[in-house]
């Protein structure tokens, strides 16, 4: 039996997701996490190396999601990466609940990867970033345990979700103040105008 998984999220993947949520403050936003399973059996690590912001409108409809997932799996599969999780930002500031849509998509990812991660944006932590330094990601981690339900990880104090680069939050705050969130493109934007690049390849250049 393997040990309990740790989740390490890379700076670019992390920043893209938060910026996306900030770009669409008045609605829910979501994205997928790409990466790979590494580490040993005794201490497995899910490395989140990249992310793709998906939608900010009509998040419950399947058709655009199916198209997005096919394309994303195709593109990242060629790099040896796969979908390792899902990110969701709720519409309202004080809503910290993991909704059904997130759970449904999570279930779908879980079928291929039992260590699948569901990340929920923690609005209060994000707000607090401007007031004090923080090394931990501004997200809550949910995983599916043996009871087959999505449980919040870390409420017992253990931190299983880590930022790979310790300075990621500093870089994030920098981008926020420079308004970088305006440049982020999601799959919704792509479907409305296919010249928009959902890979955001130019974002960090």
């Amino acid at each position, binding site marked *: 039996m393997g040990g309990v998984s740790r989740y390490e999220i890379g700076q670019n993947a992390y920043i893209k997701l938060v910026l996306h949520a900030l770009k669409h403050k008045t609605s*829910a936003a979501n994205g997928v996490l790409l990466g790979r399973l590494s580490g040993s059996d005794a201490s497995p690590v899910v490395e989140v190396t990249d992310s793709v912001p998906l939608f900010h*409108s*009509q*998040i*419950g*409809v*399947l*058709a*655009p999601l*199916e*198209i997005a997932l*096919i*394309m994303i799996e*195709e*593109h990242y599969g060629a790099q040896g990466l796969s979908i390792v999780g899902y990110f969701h930002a709720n*519409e*309202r500031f*004080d*809503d910290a609940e993991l*909704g*059904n*849509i997130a759970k*449904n998509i999570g279930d779908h990812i879980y079928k291929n990867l039992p260590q699948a991660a569901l990340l929920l944006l923690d609005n209060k932590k994000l707000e607090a970033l401007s007031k004090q330094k923080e090394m931990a990601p501004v997200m809550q981690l949910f995983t599916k345990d043996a009871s087959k339900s999505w449980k919040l990880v870390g409420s017992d104090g253990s931190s299983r979700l880590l930022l790979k680069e310790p300075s990621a939050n500093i870089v994030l705050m920098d981008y926020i103040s420079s308004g970088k969130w305006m440049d982020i493109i999601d799959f919704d934007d*792509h*479907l*409305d*105008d*296919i*010249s928009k*690049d959902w890979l955001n390849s130019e974002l960090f250049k």
Partner: protein
Amino acid sequence: MDCHCLDVAQDCIKVLQKKFPESKRVGRLEAMLLEAKGSWAEAEKAYLSLLEDNPLDQVILKRRVALTKAQGNISGAIQRLIEYLEVFMADHEAWRELAEIYVSLQMYKQAAFCYEELILSQPMIPLYHLAYADADIVLDCFEFLEEKLESGMQGVLYTLGGLENLQTAKKYYASTVDLTGGKNNRALFGVCLCTFAVAQLTKGRNKEDKESPELQSLSAAALEKDYKLRAPSKLSLLGSTLRSLKLSS
């Protein structure tokens, strides 16, 4: 207020109050400021008192819906919105808001009903056709999953009934394509997805549904043309996506 510069908003309102002391519109702005500050109870009081003088003020009635939603009371917001629509059934913005709330709660049947109302009143607006098709295609999956789970056949997602909804969805994606002159990529993708799903359902059975096989190939061709022109770096991705959707019997 939209930028959350509440101090500026407060100052503007003070100036307006001086100039138009009895104005309902200023009263409404004051209530909205309370709402922006998160003073829910006071905002509600303010709206209710404005409604006493003018019970059919659409803007204020809708603000009350927004207020309810902002407090996280989604079922309350739905209730208020339904009551509103019983009186103002031609308010498209309200129908759209209600549909979006239903979608976020995965209540697709109810969302589809809202879009039906919108299509009936404004049949030439492609957005409504598209949204209806999107809701329909999901309805197929979830509705019949529920049925199958009830009858104990787990793991069987698609059924004959699913076929009807998929065909309806395909019709509405097609009408969106029609209304937008083939330029709406979401609808083109929708057509491809539906055709694939229908083909999956009718696998191995007598193909009663042989209508317009050209529709899928035309949609695929339109997508390829557009990607070639405007997103060439993604053309090969599109190609493999379309190929995976053509994999049927």
